[in-house]
């Protein structure tokens, strides 16, 4: 009788541990997905702004003969190009990386 009750309690704790492990793996997956999304979103938001001002400074310093308007245009085009490259990388990752993680589930 005591054995039976022991078995039952051990089974219950096993089930609880499995549930806990499942919950932990879900939490881990959510956390890793959050990290990836946060990285790409901050890349897409901050990369063009940084590119704009860095390009403006460097182009101004290197090609001093360029007019002010040309420097501004080059910096703006560079910022937009950097923006689209990072968006393309994010879509690529979401399309190919996302399907792999859903297969693992």
């Amino acid at each position, binding site marked *: 009788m005591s054995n039976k009750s022991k078995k039952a309690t051990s089974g219950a704790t096993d089930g609880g541990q499995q549930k806990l492990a499942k919950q932990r793996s879900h939490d881990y997956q959510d956390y890793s997905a959050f990290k990836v*999304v946060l990285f790409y*979103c901050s890349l*897409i938001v901050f990369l063009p702004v940084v590119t704009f001002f860095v390009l403006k400074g460097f182009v101004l310093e290197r090609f001093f003969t360029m007019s002010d308007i040309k420097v*501004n245009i080059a910096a703006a*085009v560079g910022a937009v190009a950097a923006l689209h490259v990072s968006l393309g990388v994010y879509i690529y990752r*979401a*399309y190919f990386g*996302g399907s792999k993680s859903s297969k693992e589930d």
Partner: protein
Amino acid sequence: MSTSTSADNPIYGPFFGVMGAASAIIFSALGAAYGTAKSGTGIAAMSVMRPELIMKSIIPVVMAGIIAIYGLVVAVLIAGQLDVPQNYSLYKGFIHLGAGLSVGFSGMAAGFAIGIVGDAGVRGTAQQPRLFVGMILILIFAEVLGLYGLIVAIYMYTK
């Protein structure tokens, strides 16, 4: 002081440039906000049943955010050229107003399109994953509407 302003450099010349810079970011941000909110409701409704699709379904929100960056770039470009009326002709003010309005209204149109397409597309992708490629293509075509406005604005800015 009054002799330094003329018919070509009136005191209200910079007003048009300032309005151009303001309208560039205001209307772009309006479109981007609508796109984010509309596709955000779709993501929230979809994620209840399919939480593993979050990474794919964030794409409309990111694309709506890019619309606001277009407006930001043009507004910063115009704001860099603003000056006192003596150095800022009325013609420059008109050009900057046109550049700001073109990127602003194009961004608003693109943001509305991204919001509606993102809402329906994200809900549909949860039911049929093959829709994802189509949703991305439609979103890209909505996004280039804002890009066309940016190109026209930068071209005007160089005049």
